[in-house]
């Protein structure tokens, strides 16, 4: 009996070893074939979705796509680089699972958005590991152009060969090619998608209080520029020329100009204009003009179209409707280089404060009316 169990333990040890090796191999072999399975499932889903839409069109000829096309000229790389009219866009907190928030917003303002904005972190999780084709293709089919804010949260990778303290100087590591396995995989899918998509990589890189790719982690401006160029080059190599690059610093923080990678690497200048009202000790009620005016000359010097990538105001501390009215007026009057405005329609923003902030212009009827009127003009 004892001998039998000794033998059992011995065998178990060997099996464990073999098992780990085999499962690893499985993961390699399976991983590749499952990537193919994954792609074909997504492909099937896309064609199914198209067929469903065709069937739907037979019952209801009206389509959002037509509405967008009616308002905006066709979206080509050229018109999206230099749009003949203001592009309105929105991010919504329900994305990418639900489009309901965007739809409700559009209904309220009486017109569809040209740009729909989503966010994706780098990492190994299922919602991070791949180019977000489902969301992007849905946005495209509905007639809009997607914008992806692409955040290099390098700690979200679960790989033994990456160092533990990799958040420090992560931009230099990206520039060095440490994350090419991910960038190239993502860029390949983006290239396969093939239609125009705005990419806002490592935004607010000059803010030392916010994201791990900021200067507080030993990321210098040169590192950012090198990382940006490297990522761009990988995309070029993968023929992902459909990507439009939105360089998006934090204009309230100093020295953002030093992070500019150069004209040939950037298609748009992006910046958030968010009025925090009196919700934080460091903030007060600032108008659109007060937030943008100081940085604007430096931004226009770069001679690129400017996109307000996150646009909105809280209601606490002032009159939101008035804020929006003024903002639209100022844009027409003083900020001709602003060619796109993307509303930050997030009703529960818990990224900065314990009590979530509500950025939605729909929370107040007057503000919503002001937005609808401003957009209609």
């Amino acid at each position, binding site marked *: 009996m004892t001998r039998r169990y000794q033998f059992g333990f011995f065998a178990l040890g060997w099996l464990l070893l073999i098992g780990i090796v085999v499962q690893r191999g499985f993961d390699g072999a399976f991983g590749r074939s499952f990537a193919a399975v994954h792609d074909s499932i997504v492909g099937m889903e896309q064609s199914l979705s198209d067929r*469903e839409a065709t069937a*739907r069109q037979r019952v209801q000829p009206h389509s959002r796509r037509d509405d967008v096309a009616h308002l905006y000229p066709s979206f080509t790389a050229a018109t999206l680089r230099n749009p003949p009219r203001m592009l309105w866009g929105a991010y919504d907190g329900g994305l*990418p699972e639900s489009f309901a928030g965007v739809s409700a917003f559009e209904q309220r303002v009486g017109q569809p958005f040209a740009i729909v904005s989503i966010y994706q972190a780098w990492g190994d999780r299922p*919602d991070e590991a791949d180019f977000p084709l489902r969301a992007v293709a849905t946005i495209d089919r509905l007639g809009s152009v997607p914008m992806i804010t692409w955040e290099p949260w390098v700690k979200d990778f679960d790989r033994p060969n990456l160092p533990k303290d990799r958040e420090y100087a992560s931009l230099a590591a990206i520039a060095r090619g440490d994350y090419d396995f991910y960038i190239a995989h993502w860029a390949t899918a983006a290239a396969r998608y093939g239609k125009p998509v705005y990419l806002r990589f490592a935004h607010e890189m000059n803010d030392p209080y916010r994201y791990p790719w900021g200067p507080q982690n030993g990321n210098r401006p040169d590192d950012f520029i090198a990382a940006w160029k490297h990522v761009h080059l990988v995309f070029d190599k993968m023929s992902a020329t459909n990507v439009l690059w939105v360089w998006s610093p934090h204009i309230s923080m100093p020295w953002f100009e030093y992070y500019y990678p150069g004209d040939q690497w950037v298609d748009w200048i992006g910046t958030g204009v968010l009025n925090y009202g009196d919700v934080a000790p460091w903030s007060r009620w600032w108008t659109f003009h007060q937030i943008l005016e100081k940085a604007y000359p430096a931004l226009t010097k770069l001679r690129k179209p400017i996109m307000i990538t996150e646009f909105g105001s809280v209601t606490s501390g002032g009159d939101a409707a008035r804020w929006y009215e003024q903002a639209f007026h100022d844009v027409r009057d003083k900020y001709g280089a602003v060619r796109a405005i993307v509303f930050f329609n997030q009703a529960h923003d818990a990224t900065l404060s314990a009590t979530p902030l509500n950025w939605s212009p729909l929370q107040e009827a007057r503000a919503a009316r002001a937005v609808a009127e401003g957009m209609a003009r």
Partner: protein
Amino acid sequence: MWSDDELFQHRRAAPLTTTSRVILGVLIFFGLQSVVLFAWWWFRAEHVSNALLFVLLSAAVWYGVFRIVVGWYNVFHIAQPPPARAPGGLRVAVFITSSPGEPYEMFVRTLAAARAIEYPHTTYLLDDTRDPRFAELARDMGAVHLELVGFPGAKAGKINAALARTSEDFILVLDPDHIPFPNFFEPVLGHFDDERVGFVQVAQAYYNQPRSFVARAAAEQTYAFYGPILQGMHGTGTAVAIGANCTFRRRALESIGGHGVGLAEDLVTAIRLHAAGWTSVYVPEIVARGLVPEDLGSFVKQQLKWARGVFDVLFNEYPRAFRRLTAHQRLSYLMIGTYYLVGLTTPVYLLIPAVYLWTGVQPAAMFLSEYLRHALPVGLFGCILYLYAQRWLCDPPRERGWHWRGMLLKVGCWSVYLHGLVLALLGVAVPYIPTAKSRQRGNFWRMAAVPLIVIFGSVATLAAVLYRRLIVMPEAEVRITTEVAAGMIGFLMTNVAFMGGRLYAAWKDRAR
């Protein structure tokens, strides 16, 4: 179709080799790793969409996986008793029970076969038909006729009454629809040399499975059980008695106050004998063949009876015996006692797509491809092991296969098992009726009610979904939910397909 010569022939399961056990161990090891990786992936906070539904779905899925894993553990312990020749001079009785309504012709055949068993024995006909022809038949066939009318506890009541009137040391309880082969006792009696052995069970096999879809399905449900599963149970000392074709030691039965009574009287007897310290032997040999239900009505009645009886054992016998059982026996009787919980898990599977398609609430937020990546290895090793273990079936040429009919009918009969569970919980009795021995016909609508409700419900759901998605829902929502909706419709259609077996059987057995 197989000829009688092929069917009525002694068969025994293939012997165990070291190589096959090593292969088994390796396959099980990989299977376990797949299960661990699947679990590792499944239980993640970001997968939870609706907490209540997620808990329900997880319970259903992991109950199934747990059964598979315990099944692997059991199969790994596969063992066969060493061949033991029957010693001469044992005093052996064969008990055959007859009840009102059972066909006379069946007893002609069974009694003749019992007479032809080579080992010296006495056959008793335990009769409460009050039909003089049965007494006459017993005399003609050299059997002792025992008139046992009015004993409560149906079959077991008669057996206990007959025990009091006889004195043989070993008693074979033979189902009247089973035809024993002449060498029946040859592989059985030798095992009683070990004084601790309380009963010896042989395989059950059938000769009527080609006669109908239900018969094939019902037989398919038993092949693995009498093959690798019971051999594994023999290896862990948990082999149970299955009503028919079990030979008991009189002293063992007497030590527990006689044969157990109840709808699952075999199981009651087995658990009491194990608790009293008796051991059991399973002989993987076909030395008799009998009948399975041929029509849906009889099958459903039999399944309800079993489900009710097995739950009864779980609720009443199991807790009482628990402390005196070995660890393996505790696990084994728990697995048997919860076998019919499929009556609870199937409705969960039916519920989930319906809830999503009507309300948009879903249990889990998982990518289909991610799910496949983690669940497929488990399914793959499950299938490989199921097929590999078929080398230990008792009659592989006739029993090998995917056994899809059996599976379809089992899932399709979920309502029967649920019914059995409810009856057991409420303590409502189900009358003991011997399973019909010939094909009965019934009202189609009544027999097909449950599958038809599920199928019509699914079709209505599908229609409502198409209406909602094509007309009511905003275009953007439609576009963004294609994958999950398609997945859930696929789920719904799978359920419809699973109801197809029971529906088909009801159609074939409808009254015309």
